[in-house]
């Protein structure tokens, strides 16, 4: 016969508690979340507009001519009604939930063709966009949230938040417009050495670092709070503003 002493049984019971708690927590969390995935046919130059309340937004490219939206919604789940338009897709979580006071975060993962344009906005949460080659990339966080744009080669790029870092790793197209603005956080632009642009950069004194893009053609104004001038051919227009944080230029 196999006997267990009372001490051994107590130990076994105590060891089972964390495991049970973990299972319970995972189950509760899974039940509290709702995951929705939708596919839409799209041309190569599709435009996505998303207005989120709070949560992360991740946009990636893929080789298919279609859009896939995956929304993971925290409870209480929001109304989620993407609308197809002539030019693409509109997801307006703010408008669709205007009368609702308390809704959970929505985390979006969006997969689109690389030639797409994206216009993204959220009250709070991170925005991440990678490998977009379309006309427009706009990422706006009303309050707090980092913005990360990597492998972006669009004609117009606008990235702004109040609190949080902004990181851009991409190229400036000749004749393109690029604006980056933060209230507090670090703005980092990582560019190829051959990049040419006309710059207006504004930040608190001594907080603008041009790094390898520093040249004699750049002028410093307002006791070091602004740097203007051309880098390379100066064909792209670049405006960078940071109320309290740093602005850094890095070479890829």
């Amino acid at each position, binding site marked *: 016969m196999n006997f267990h002493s009372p001490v051994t049984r107590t130990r076994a019971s105590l060891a089972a508690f964390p495991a049970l708690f973990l299972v319970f927590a995972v189950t509760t969390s899974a039940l509290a979340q709702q995951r929705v995935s939708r596919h839409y046919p799209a041309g190569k130059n599709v435009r996505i507009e998303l207005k989120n309340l709070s949560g992360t937004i991740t946009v990636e490219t893929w080789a298919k001519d279609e859009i896939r939206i995956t929304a993971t919604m925290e409870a209480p789940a929001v109304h989620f009604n993407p609308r197809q338009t002539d030019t693409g897709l509109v997801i307006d979580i703010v408008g669709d939930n205007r009368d609702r006071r308390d809704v959970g975060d929505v985390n979006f993962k969006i997969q689109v063709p690389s030639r797409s344009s994206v216009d993204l906005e959220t009250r*709070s949460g991170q925005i991440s966009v990678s490998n977009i080659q379309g006309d427009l990339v706009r990422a706006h966080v*009303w*309050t*707090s949230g980092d913005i990360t744009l990597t492998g972006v080669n669009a004609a117009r790029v606008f990235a702004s938040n109040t609190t949080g870092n902004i990181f851009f790793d991409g190229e400036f197209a000749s004749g393109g417009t690029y604006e980056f603005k933060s209230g507090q956080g670090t703005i980092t632009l990582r560019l190829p050495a051959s990049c040419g642009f006309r710059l207006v950069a*504004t930040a608190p004194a001594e907080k603008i670092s041009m790094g390898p893009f520093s040249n004699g053609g750049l002028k410093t104004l*307002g006791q070091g709070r602004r740097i203007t001038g051309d880098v390379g051919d100066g064909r792209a227009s670049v405006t960078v503003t940071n109320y309290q944080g740093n602005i850094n230029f890095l070479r890829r």
Partner: protein
Amino acid sequence: MNCENYQNLVSDFIDGSLSPEDQNNVAGHLSVCGPCTDVRSDLGAIVAFCLEHRNEYEAVPNERALWLRISNVIEAESAEPARAIIPANAGWWFRLMNRSWQLSFPQLAAAATVIIIAVSMLTVVGLRRLNFTGGPEVVASGIALPVTGLSVKDRYRQQQQVIDYWNERVELNKARWNPQMRETFDKNMGVIDAAVNDSMRQLTQNPHDEVSEEILNAALNDKVELLKEFAAL
């Protein structure tokens, strides 16, 4: 029959074309009804006059010539009082305002051309003056503040009124927000306020600092936009 029916028969009664029975009925009614008797009298007089003057009116030999003469007389009489109203010792303004203007098409076109040229010149001069006085403010405003000759403090005061309005609306809604949202909002508003205060401090030290003025405008505008966004919650 009532009076209306009898009056419809009066014309035939005068002509004597009614049946003997109707003739008697109408005659009987006329003997007792004053209004119908008056109608009979008026109509009888008209008929008698027409019979008496038959063939006295002939067609006008030249109607157009007659109408032109009438038209000339009317025009002459209507123009006469206007000239008569202006006293001989009236001032130039009175004469100008009471003058009747009759311009030919070329005169009208010339007058319109002169007015257009004058207005264009005034507009050009006005815009140049605006650009001259606006100068750096035009560049600095870029966002929302009014482009006038107001000082930075005056413009700040104006913008502050807009901020106060939206702030009130936000405060009304704030009680309904969850603590996390309230904390996020306050934290971010603090960041913008710090930028505003920093710019104001710089401008106090150097009132002509364009960079600080631009940052101040941008920060105030960001503040209004953030308040507007959260006022809807």
